[in-house]
C-alpha cells in the first residue's frame, strides 16, 4: 500500500470516527444544543418582514438626525423663557419705538402722577 492510499484510508477512517463521535453525544449535551437552537430560531424573522426594514445605515442616520433635532429643540425652548420682554405686542412696540427710553424707565412714576392728578 503506497502513501497516498494510506493517507486516503486514514482520512476516511478519521471522518467516520468523527461523525460517530458527533452522533453519540451524551443526552445532556444534545438537550443543551437543542435548547440553544430553539432559542436562536426565535430570532428568525418572518418571511417578508425583512423587505420592509430599512437598511441599517438609514436607521442609524435617522436616529442621529432625530437626536440632533431633539437637542436643537431642547436648546430652542430653553432659550425662550416665559418672561421674554418681547413676548407681547405692546412690549414689542416699546422695543421697536424710537422714543426716549427714559420715558419708559419712568413710566411707573408718570402713571402714579396721573392717578394723583385724576384723584385731586
Amino acid at each position, binding site marked *: 500500500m503506497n502513501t497516498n492510499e494510506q493517507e486516503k484510508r486514514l482520512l476516511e477512517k478519521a*471522518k467516520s470516527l468523527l461523525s460517530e463521535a458527533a452522533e453519540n453525544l451524551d443526552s445532556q449535551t444534545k438537550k443543551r444544543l437543542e435548547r440553544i437552537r430553539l432559542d436562536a430560531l426565535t430570532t428568525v424573522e418572518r418571511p417578508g418582514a425583512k423587505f420592509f426594514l430599512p437598511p441599517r445605515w438609514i436607521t442609524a442616520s435617522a436616529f442621529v438626525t432625530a437626536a440632533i433635532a431633539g437637542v436643537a429643540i431642547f436648546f430652542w425652548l430653553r432659550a425662550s423663557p416665559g418672561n421674554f420682554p418681547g413676548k407681547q405686542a405692546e412690549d414689542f412696540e416699546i422695543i421697536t419705538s424710537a422714543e426716549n427710553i427714559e420715558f419708559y424707565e419712568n413710566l411707573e412714576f408718570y402713571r402714579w402722577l396721573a392717578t394723583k392728578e385724576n384723584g385731586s
Partner: protein
Amino acid sequence: MNIRDKVNQFLTHVERRAFKMAKYATGNVDEALDLVQDAMFGFVRHYTNRPEDEWNVLFYSILRSRITDWYRRAFVRKRVLSWVTRANDSEDEGDPIQDVPDTRTLNAFEDILRHEELLALEKAIQMLPLRQQQAFLLRVWEEMDVKQTAFVMGCSEGSVKTHYSRAVHTLRGLLEDIRS
C-alpha cells in the same frame, strides 16, 4: 417549508459537528456550547436571507471567528495570570494563537468515547495547532474544498493547503505513535 423550518433543519444538521469542533478547540463543554450559541445567533441574525447553499460556509465562518476570539482571550488571560504570578518570565514570540499553551485535559472525552481509535484520533486532533485543526476538520469532516475553507478561515488558499498538509502529516505521525 418556511424559512424558520429551513433554518431549523440546517442548524440541526450542523449543531453536533459544530459543538465537537468547538470542543476540540477549547477542550471544555461549556465553552464549546457558548461558542456554538454565539455562532447560531450570529448566523440567524445576519445570514438566513442568503442563499441556502452558502449557509454551511457562512455558519462555519462565524464559528471559526468565535473560536479564534476565544483563543485570543484565553491567550491574554493566560499571559496576564502568568505575569501576575510571575510564574513565567519568558517572552513568547510568533503567532499567539498557535502558541497558546494547551490547558485541556486529555481525559475530557472519557464519557463519550466509544473505543480506542476514536480516543487516539481526538487526542491527536487536539494536539494540532488551531489553524491546522480547523483546516483538517473543514476539509475532511465538512468536505469543504480549498476555496470554501479559505473563506471560512479567512486566509489564502495557499495557507489552507499548508495548514492541511501539516495537519495530515502530524496526525499520521501522532496516530502511529499512539498505536505503537
